[in-house]
């Protein structure tokens, strides 16, 4: 091995980001993809989440962290109107997507979900071939062009191509858990989304598969905006540019519990010098 080959490759354009993390002003200088104001979500009249206002910026990874029941999964589902599918769910407040009201009457939720893809905690490939899993979305949407090229590109973007290129006709359920999750990411990418929402994308995966998903997220943010919900605080610290910490507010009787946004800032700030004591207690493990 020559000396040149032993030198680690560092992308010079990312040196500042790698060595000190992006600061808030740099992130906020980027285009707003989502702008949320006074959001509240309730299920059958019971408030699950309230008073949430924040912006999500283009080509960044934004993480939502917090204890169980804080509303972080409820919140991420507001970004592609997944809560519409839950009977009794009601969303108040405003969610703007590139300046347009996501909840306006004339907005088609199906079109929303094409542009704002989602990857879930448990990999959920269709019981079909690897190829068909990717091709399904573009076919349904009538997207033109070579399907083979589209499938290959999506699998390459999801860092899965080399592992599956010789067995595209095999059933997707024969893939490992980590591969299935990357297949689901490829499936989301195949319909050319703008945003990828990830709800605990690595919580069911082993550490090596988790690392691959995290590396993939870093690669994907060049072209996409990523929002992730994670229980794993170190994962948020490793991948996210911005982190929002949600907490649970319990009423005086201890009966009603609702999620609130406590702090939203650059990830480096949240994990080094958080402004709110509740955030400090949570990230240092002194919560509860």
């Amino acid at each position: 091995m020559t000396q040149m080959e032993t030198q680690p490759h560092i992308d010079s354009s990312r040196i500042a980001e790698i060595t000190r993390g992006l600061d808030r002003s740099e992130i906020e200088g980027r285009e707003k993809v989502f702008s949320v104001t006074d959001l509240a979500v309730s299920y059958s009249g019971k408030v699950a989440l309230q008073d949430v206002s924040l912006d999500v910026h283009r080509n960044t990874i934004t993480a939502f962290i917090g204890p169980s029941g804080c509303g972080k999964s409820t919140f991420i589902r507001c970004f592609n109107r997944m809560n519409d599918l839950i009977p009794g769910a009601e969303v108040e407040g405003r969610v703007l997507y590139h300046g347009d009201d996501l909840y306006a009457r004339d907005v088609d939720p199906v079109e929303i979900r094409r542009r704002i893809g989602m990857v879930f905690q448990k990999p959920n490939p269709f019981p079909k071939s690897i190829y068909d899993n990717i091709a399904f979305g573009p076919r349904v949407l009538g997207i033109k062009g070579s399907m083979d090229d589209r499938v290959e590109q999506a699998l390459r973007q999801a860092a899965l191509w080399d592992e599956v290129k010789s067995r595209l006709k095999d059933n997707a359920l024969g893939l490992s858990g980590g591969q299935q999750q990357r297949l689901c990411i490829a499936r989301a990418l195949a319909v050319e989304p703008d945003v990828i929402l990830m709800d605990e994308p690595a919580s069911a995966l082993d550490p090596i598969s988790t690392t691959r998903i995290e590396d993939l997220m870093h690669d994907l943010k060049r072209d996409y905006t990523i929002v992730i919900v994670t229980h794993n605080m170190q994962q948020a610290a490793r991948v996210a540019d911005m982190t929002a910490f949600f907490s649970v507010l319990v009423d005086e009787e201890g009966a009603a519990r609702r999620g609130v946004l406590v702090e939203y800032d650059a990830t480096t700030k949240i994990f080094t010098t958080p402004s709110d004591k509740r955030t400090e207690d949570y990230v240092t493990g002194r919560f509860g």
Partner: protein
Amino acid sequence: MRVELQAELDALEAGFQEAGEIVLRSIRGVIDALRTQDVELCDEVIAFDDEIDARYLALEKQVEMTLARQTPVASDLRLVLAILHSALHLERVGDQCVTIAKLTKLSSHLDTKRTVVESLVDMGERCAEMVKVSLSAFAARDVQAARGLHQLDELVDNANRQVFHEVLGYVHDAEALEWGMRQITVARCFERIGDNAVDIGEQTAFIVTGEFAEFTDASHDPRPLV
């Protein structure tokens, strides 16, 4: 509550304070050696440095372990980093004591000048006080006390300048000049100990505020070094 992390942080901090006590013993030893021009005591101070180095290495290892196993964040991370930095400052104070002890031995065959020795002992005592304050401010997370170290350091810096000017007066006496030049280095060592105490104070402010800032900027200080 992360019980194990808290236990490791408590152990680290206790180890750091113990290292501080050991270093203070070394400073007091070297002040006595200087006052009495005791060569045997100088040898003891020199030998004692192995204990200081061992304490430093143990703390460094402990920090490495805590970072690897517990991945502390926020105020916990700042505490661990501050202990690592401050332990190195303490280790350097130990090294300065060794240099003072060696210089005292080297000049033991020469006549001493009482006024200079008294100035040096006075400097040493101020330095011991500064290290003590830096340790107690660290333990109490007392930023005000930590900032106060800067004022104490100015007194040490002034004393350093006085020793220099006193020795300038020996220029026509070769033997006195040889002795005096070694004492200038002793004064410089004490001056560095004062700086190390201020550096530990800065780490205390870092733990509390989350911002690292030098209390003074020596590179832009208009005053002469000596």
